[in-house]
């Protein structure tokens, strides 16, 4: 589970005046161990420019040979702790940092995957198709009627469906494996796909999710009976075939989908929000 509490401290590996430089291999091991635990680490070496600073507490690690200096922030805004790491192995240094952090919460790798859409505003035309499409309220509209990602936590891990239906290929998921969804450059073929803007929510009417949720023969049969001979049917079939064929909606996402009635209700609400935002532009 993610916490939205910011990191409680910034670790500085200090190798300037008054400390002994670590061997390069040890330095790399320490940094890898701290990063893989979720910490941010600054390496500060002799004569190098100051790193950008914020207002979080500092934990300064250095090979001070038993003489870790007492430091105080001139502005009094933050606390600065210093720790002598002379002769310590990487594991012991990580333990020291953990101890310094204490009970303060921090996200750690392996417990949560940062999965949410990132909008490429250089491509986005504010068509609101993603807002209409997503049934989990990930998208919203800003005060100036621009589409934006408002509820990261609602996004279903490993599901990039909204990216697939974006007519401008403007939605990225940086943790996705393949391009252009992962942010890779977009070629002409990809840019030209699905240029037709459609009202996804009314087009799909929730059927696509319920059909995917239950792939049994009965469900398939029921779905096929619900087809209508209008123009939307072609688009629905095309979209459904693509979704199923690509297999990009994971089983656990399908299992967590709301009921058909809820989907229809959500789709109507999203459609209204999108229409209102577009009308206000």
């Amino acid at each position, binding site marked *: 589970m993610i916490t939205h509490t910011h990191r409680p401290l910034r670790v500085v590996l200090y190798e300037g005046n008054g400390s002994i430089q670590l061997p390069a291999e040890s330095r790399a091991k320490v940094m890898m161990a701290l990063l893989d635990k979720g910490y941010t680490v*600054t390496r500060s070496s002799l004569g190098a420019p100051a790193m950008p600073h914020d207002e979080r507490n500092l934990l300064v690690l250095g090979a001070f040979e038993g003489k870790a200096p007492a430091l105080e922030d001139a502005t009094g805004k933050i606390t600065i702790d210093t720790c002598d790491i002379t002769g310590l192995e990487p594991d012991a240094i990580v333990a020291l940092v953990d101890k310094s952090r204490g009970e303060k919460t921090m996200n750690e790798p392996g417990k949560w995957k940062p999965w949410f859409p990132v909008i490429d505003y250089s491509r986005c035309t504010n068509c609101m198709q993603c807002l209409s499409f997503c049934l989990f309220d990930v998208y919203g509209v800003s005060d100036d009627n621009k589409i934006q990602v408002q509820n990261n936590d609602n996004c279903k891990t490993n599901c990039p469906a909204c990216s697939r239906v974006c007519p401008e290929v403007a939605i990225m998921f940086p943790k996705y494996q393949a391009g252009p969804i992962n942010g890779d450059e977009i070629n002409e073929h990809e840019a030209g796909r699905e240029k037709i803007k459609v009202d996804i929510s009314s087009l799909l009417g929730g059927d696509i999710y319920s059909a995917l949720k239950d792939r049994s023969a009965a469900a398939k049969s029921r779905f096929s009976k619900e087809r209508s001979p209008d123009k939307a049917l072609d688009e629905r079939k095309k979209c459904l075939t693509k979704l199923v064929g690509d297999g990009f909606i994971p089983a656990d996402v399908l299992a967590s989908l709301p009921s058909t009635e809820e989907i229809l209700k959500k789709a109507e609400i999203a459609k209204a929000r999108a229409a209102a935002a577009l009308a206000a532009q």
Partner: protein
Amino acid sequence: MGKLPAHCQSAFYHLLLSLPATILYCRCAYAQVVPTGVKNEVLQKLCDSNASFETVSDLCEMAAHRDPRLQAIAACGKLRIAACYPRAVKGLFQQAGFPLPADTEILNMRTQTAQEIADALLSAAPATVA
């Protein structure tokens, strides 16, 4: 505040150009989408150098909760970032509310070699953007 004389402006401009860029390395620790060998080697090469540099566990994780550290990084002027696709990195900062300066150089550990990236990060000249 008055405007600097032309000769001072020029000197200031050249001073800015001569300042080393801040180096940022993203570990991408929350998902295994960056090849482990490349990200380890890039970090090792940074550690082998005398450069100061900034590292983060995962830019996506920080962007998810609009970590103010991103603001400090975006505000630091000249910046070279070793992470993943430039479009994604720029989008993450923008979505977090802290857009990167236009001249930020982003190196892609998903497609470039560790040597290319380390050379670009540590070079005195502007890097080739992926």
